[in-house]
């Protein structure tokens, strides 16, 4: 990447539509892979954080160590995380990409799940017990719906930031749209890079809106309150 060559290549147009048309299969594949990595990471993250949140809510003293650990993970540089796992699971393994991505979701998801259940007023719990709801029924039909707005907010934030982080997974040969970005950068051919970057931003915004909408569907009483306010 010497200076003179770069200057020449800098005159590449930002986007060349013929390429988009010709390489449509590659773009679609990258987009699907991006979505797949995001969903795998979110699914794994949700399972783990539900367990962690349940532990933290059940045994209050575990709250501090769980928060401290997930916070620490959250501050680990993503490049370092991928680098850490690459020698273990192999450079090109999907596990190497999904594990760190899932790990990054933990702080946001655990915090929100715990906050959601803690937001259930003690009086509501007390009333539920007093009316003879079994503990399982109380959690499922009273506490969970009430915690849902918090949980959905957590899922939304975690999903959107995962979409952004997936691009970085391209440094280990994964990363869906991130691979397009890398290819473009490496060859100073801007079209794939622009396509990859724009699509990842659009994907993030669309998932954000989608999850927001699902969250509102799941908590109609909140929607009414907002409309009244």
């Amino acid at each position: 990447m010497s200076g003179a060559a770069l200057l020449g290549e800098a005159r590449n147009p930002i986007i060349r539509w013929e390429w988009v048309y010709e390489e449509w299969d590659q773009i679609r594949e990258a987009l699907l892979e991006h979505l797949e990595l995001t969903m795998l990471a979110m699914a794994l993250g949700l399972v783990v954080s539900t367990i962690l949140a349940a532990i933290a809510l059940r045994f209050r003293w575990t709250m501090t160590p769980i928060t401290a650990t997930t916070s620490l993970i959250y501050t680990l540089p993503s490049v370092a995380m991928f680098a850490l796992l690459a020698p273990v699971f192999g450079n090109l393994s999907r596990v190497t990409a999904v594990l760190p991505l899932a790990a990054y979701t933990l702080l946001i998801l655990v915090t929100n799940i715990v906050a959601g259940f803690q937001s259930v007023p003690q009086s509501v719990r007390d009333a539920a017990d007093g009316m003879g709801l079994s503990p399982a029924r109380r959690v499922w039909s009273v506490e969970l719906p009430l915690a849902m707005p918090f949980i959905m907010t957590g899922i939304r934030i975690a999903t959107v930031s995962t979409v952004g982080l997936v691009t970085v997974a391209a440094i280990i040969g994964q990363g869906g749209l991130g691979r397009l970005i890398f290819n473009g950068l490496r060859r100073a051919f801007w079209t794939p890079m622009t396509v990859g970057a724009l699509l990842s931003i659009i994907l993030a915004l669309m998932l954000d809106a989608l999850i927001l909408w699902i969250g509102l569907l799941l908590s109609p009483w909140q929607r009414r309150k907002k409309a009244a306010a």
Partner: protein
Amino acid sequence: MQHSFPDPESQINASRAAIRLSGVTKEFRGSAEAAVADLSLDIEEGSIVALLGPSGCGKTTTLRMINRLIEPTSGTIEINGTNVADIPAQELRRGIGYVIQQVGLFPHRSIASNIGTVPKMLGWNKKRIAERVEELTSLVGLDHDLLSRYPDELSGGQQQRVGVARALAADPPVLLMDEPFGAVDPIVRARLQDQLLELQSEVRKTIVLVTHDVDEALRVADQIALLNVGGVLEQLAAPDDLMRTPANDFVRTFVGEDRWLRRLHLNLVSSLPHHTGPILPIAATFGEAREVLAAEGVSWLGITEDDVFLGWVQASALDAVEAAGGSLADLERQLPAAQVEPTSTLRSAMELIMVSNTSAAVINEGGKFGGVVTLEGIRRGLAGDTS
């Protein structure tokens, strides 16, 4: 109304229930003193009993032991002779209405769905639940338009009414209320208290009500159990008896130095010994009039005709009218400024007497003359002095 308890064998499967606490003690772990110590209490069916006392007296703990939200360390609690410990906790609770200060409505469910919570758990069909919800809404005086709303859209007073309706949904024989009106403002609280009494006259539940508010206890309870710190029962008595004959210094201090004044709220005009006062029918003679005036030691006289009160006359005017050859009917009459009903409290009678600047209020008993109330009569009435 046999649906309160799913178990038909259960002895508390009835529309009425008496509660008996025998030697109930609760010690919390890590606390040196018992929260409730050896408490025995009989609660009559169909009555409202207030558990009254300062914070730390174990009144809420006692209440929560009745529906087993807290298990006693020792002692037994029976409802209609059945030990509550023998009934599965959740089944027991579905048969006991429970109302708390913060109401605890489910924010994600509509008002109708909140009220129908227990019937739904008991497996009632939709139609029956809907009918019951409608019925309860009227009973507690809620607007039917509110049924489709969410709890956050209601005022505090409305929410509390929904809480009561929800507790009554499966028509349980027992209602437990923990500071039910503590979170609403005084005006709404007074209205809700009145409504509770109105409701109780219809449903006749056995109600145990926890409060730290002496006035609330005096106002709504049939019996007051006054508890001291550590769950010691200091006195169990009807409100007026608690005021009139406090068992000890604690009771005296707790109900306050103004307990005589409080009794004015509690006792009704009808509770006073019947006293007609210086009253004469319009056909009476001047001689009879002078006799009555002397006997009562007053300077005025009431005149009635066919048991209807006509007004007051001044004693000083008697001589002149008699000299002119008139009768009692010719005396200038003042209309009564102070009129009370037999159902008025002594306090309002006293207030009327003060405001109207007279010495007595006339009791209006369905349009007829029912006697007079004087300050002296009130004093004697409260002192139990019937002479």
